[in-house]
């Protein structure tokens, strides 16, 4: 019976009973118990009907039976109420007491009529007892059996059949119940084992999780330290670059100074050949100086030491200045260079003239450098609350795959192009960083052989909207 195939269905039901949380479990148990008691309620009137029927046939009615039935019903109700409050054990023992007293009463007065009644009650009680621990079931079952078997003591006239037949039925039924009880306890045990195994597993998992957590925290800390170290090394690197650049600029100062003095004739007259050579020293030192300046700027940007200083500036004047500065380059390369300023743009805007110039001059030099013939165009226009600086050229263009790294430091399109096109490869990196610092964006549109367009979009800060922001 213990390994019966009904196990699966019953198993599910029973396990669902156990796996319910404690308070829910209580409620379920109480509901089952009250169901059994309700069955008793059904048995009680049924029993009354049987009794009544027997009494109709029996010409000698005994009114005590009515009283007994009434008392039993009242006691069952009380037991029911007690059980509903969660006190199963007292309820069961109350019922047990009732059954035993009824048993004795019947034994003394009318053994035939009460039989079905107490049998039904006993069976119901047995079912009710199933909800109690095994010890209580044994005690209750034993007491009932003793009560049945000791009936002849109360009424020696009672025939043997009235004692042993119910006892035999009772024992068989009790046996079935006992098997069921064992089954229950075994299932409970299994479930318990399963639960404790699950608990152990979850505890193990918990421990593992905690260990993982701790490891994670440790690695996090290590990561933070590594990050701090990386930060520090960036700072150290930038500091190093700045120092080196400064040290490089000091001798450059003397070189540029003396060549300047000689070229401007302050140091006396030079013959044409010497002048030519000094002019070459001058151009080369200037290029070297530009490279050093680029490195210095980039290191300052990386070390976050470079600031953008917003002051009112006249955009058109600035454009004129840029034209003056790069016009020479355009003339040297016989390129057509034009500028255009959106007339809708305010006369005066807020910006960092020096950094803005650095951006535009870098983009323009770049355009001139990579445009062997044709034209370069600078266009500044308003785009809502932003303004746009666009530099386009008819130059060699930039291949799609190169466009993604063109803004990185020390990158020119490829090794072969670095030779004809001089430059540090820092210009666009500086431009990108400066644009970012100004909360702007830089984009590039280009096709190989069809020129390039660099577009810088920056927030438009005018004296008016600065005031509005302040207000």
């Amino acid at each position: 019976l213990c390994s019966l195939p009904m196990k699966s269905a019953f198993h599910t039901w029973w396990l669902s009973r156990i796996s319910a949380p404690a308070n829910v479990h209580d409620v379920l148990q109480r509901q089952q118990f009250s169901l059994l008691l309700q069955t008793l309620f059904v048995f009680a009137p049924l029993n009354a009907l049987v009794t009544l029927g027997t009494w109709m046939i029996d010409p000698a009615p005994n009114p005590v039976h009515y009283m007994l039935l009434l008392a039993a019903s009242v006691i069952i109700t009380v037991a029911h109420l007690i059980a509903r409050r969660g006190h199963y054990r007292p309820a069961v023992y109350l019922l047990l007491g009732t059954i035993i007293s009824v048993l004795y009463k019947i034994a003394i007065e009318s053994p035939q009529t009460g039989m079905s009644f107490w049998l039904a009650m006993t069976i119901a009680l047995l079912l009710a007892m199933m909800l109690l621990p095994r010890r209580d079931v044994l005690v209750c079952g034993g007491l009932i059996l003793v009560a049945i078997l000791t009936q002849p003591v109360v009424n020696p006239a009672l025939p043997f059949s009235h004692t042993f037949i119910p006892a035999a039925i009772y024992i068989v039924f009790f046996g079935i119940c006992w098997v069921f009880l064992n089954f229950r306890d075994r299932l409970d045990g299994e479930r318990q084992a399963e639960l404790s195994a699950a608990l152990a597993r979850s505890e193990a998992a918990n421990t593992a999780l905690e260990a993982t957590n701790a490891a994670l925290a440790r690695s996090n800390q290590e990561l933070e330290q590594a990050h701090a170290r990386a930060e520090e090394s960036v700072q150290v690197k930038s500091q190093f670059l700045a120092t080196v650049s400064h040290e490089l600029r000091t001798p450059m100062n003397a070189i540029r100074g003396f060549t300047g003095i000689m070229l401007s004739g302050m140091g006396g007259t030079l013959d044409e050949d010497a002048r030519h050579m000094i002019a070459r020293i001058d151009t080369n030192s200037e290029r070297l100086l530009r490279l050093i300046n680029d490195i210095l700027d980039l290191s300052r940007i990386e070390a976050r030491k470079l600031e953008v200083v917003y002051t009112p500036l006249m955009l058109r004047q600035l454009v004129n200045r840029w034209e003056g500065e790069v016009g020479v380059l355009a003339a040297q390369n016989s390129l057509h260079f034009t500028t255009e300023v959106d007339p809708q743009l305010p006369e005066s805007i807020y910006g960092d003239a020096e950094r803005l110039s650095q951006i535009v001059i870098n983009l323009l030099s770049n355009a001139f450098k990579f445009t062997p013939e044709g034209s370069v165009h600078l266009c500044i226009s308003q785009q809502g609350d932003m303004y746009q600086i666009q530099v386009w050229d008819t130059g060699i263009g930039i291949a799609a795959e190169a466009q993604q790294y063109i803004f990185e430091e020390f990158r020119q399109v490829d090794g072969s192009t670095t030779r004809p096109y001089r430059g540090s490869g820092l210009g666009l990196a500086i431009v990108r960083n400066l644009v970012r610092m100004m909360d702007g964006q830089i984009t590039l549109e280009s096709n190989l052989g069809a020129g390039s367009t660099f577009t810088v979009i920056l927030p438009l800060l005018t004296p008016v909207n600065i005031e509005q922001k302040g207000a």
Partner: protein
Amino acid sequence: MVEPNQITRDALRGWNVLIVDDMPDNLEVAYRVLRYYGAQVHRANNGMEALGMARALHPDIIIADLMMPVMDGWEMMRRIKADSSLSDIPVIALTGMGKSADALQEAAEVGFFDYLTKPLTPATFVTDLLRLMNNLPHPNYVGTEHPQGD
């Protein structure tokens, strides 16, 4: 823009200038340029020397490097401002570290009159100096607030 060849040889005539730099070559460049335009030039190798010379000579203008051994430009400037006999001399800072907002602010706070960045090429040096001098009282025109440069 003022080109060096547009500047007359006597643009700085009558100016008594003290230049301070720890690098002899840099000192030499500035000396030659200033001399070329007619200024009377004195040279000091550090802030300490410059202070002594300034007290003795009372120059019209001091052009000083910032990073120097013995006494740097910042300290020299503080001492000049603290000395009532020297505090009226305009001092122009020379630095190799580019222009940054912080440095400009700090230079102004310490009391530098203005700021020139290295490297000095004769052309930019003299034009920048003349530009600054337009804001300075010229020794030959005492009492005139904004005399014309040259």
